[in-house]
């Protein structure tokens, strides 16, 4: 296993190590699927049940969604913290930064615009709900 880094899926592996690799891959995907199913089920339950404190539900859903995205990244897309994965992780971190800026920034600015530029609460009501 000395020149593993030059090994592409098309290269010839010994039958033993290939079988081993496929078995561990199968385990990874299956664990990922099970975790994703648990998170999905929890999300759908939290959204429909009346047991939970309602104002807290959206935050809970957001946390579950982020957790499930993490599961997908690790178990399906195989983003790891290994040295061979540094570039992938850095690109991901940059992507997350931009996504946070775009979504957070838009919501922040638009909320302020709504608050500052609406003529009066009555009119705003009309505007939003008529």
């Amino acid at each position, binding site marked *: 296993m000395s020149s593993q*880094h030059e090994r592409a899926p098309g290269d010839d592996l010994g039958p033993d190590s290939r079988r081993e690799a496929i078995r561990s891959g199968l385990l990874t995907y299956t664990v990922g*699927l099970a975790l994703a199913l648990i998170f*999905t089920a929890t999300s759908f339950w939290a959204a429909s049940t009346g047991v939970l404190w309602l104002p807290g539900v959206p935050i809970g859903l957001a946390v579950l*969604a982020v957790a499930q995205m993490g599961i*997908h990244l690790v178990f399906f897309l195989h983003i790891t913290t290994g*040295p061979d994965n540094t*570039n992938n992780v850095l690109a991901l971190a940059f992507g997350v930064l931009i996504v946070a800026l775009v979504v957070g920034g838009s919501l922040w600015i638009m909320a302020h615009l709504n608050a500052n530029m609406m003529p009066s609460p009555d009119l705003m009501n009309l505007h939003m709900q008529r």
Partner: protein
Amino acid sequence: MTDTTLPMASHARKDGPASKRIIVAYGFWIFLLSDIIMFSAIFATYAVLVGATDGGPTGAELFDQKRVAIETLCLLFSSYACGMMSLAIEAKHRLATYGAAAVTFALGAVFLTLELSEFAGMIAEGATPQRSAFLSAFFTLVGCHGAHVGFGLLWLVVMMAQLNAKGFRDDVLRRLACFSLFWHALDIIWVALFSIVYLMGGRV
């Protein structure tokens, strides 16, 4: 990243550039991130406009949680089947590869059919994209994801044809690896989508 099953060299990368397989996967990963950033802009638009229903139907009136749950399961299991396809490719097992690809395709097609029938039902009720800013944003966001899924299905068919014609050649394998990255990334976007649009927006 794409290298699912092989224990990759975490040591011993002193010599020479990375293999083409790793570089291609990295480039495609950057494309996927840029795609996710595009989606984030559409998500932001949706979040800003979600209350602007102009007296028209709201999400709580329109969304059917059961249908969304089925769609979610379809896409999740399709993603899993795509992982199985990667493993079958690793094993160079032709029949298993075609089988897993067929399952991936079928589940993706069921997802797309359910989504299109949802759209058709909404439009029949008068909840068209023209009705309100909320509905414009909704159709843009969900439709954009659906278009990605449709493109992915087409891509999968093309890849199977290539596999049939060219066999397990290195360039075909790299494209297949990119396809599986694409398919898993679509599932990630769907997680954000069903949480934000359907679950948060569907509550009364």
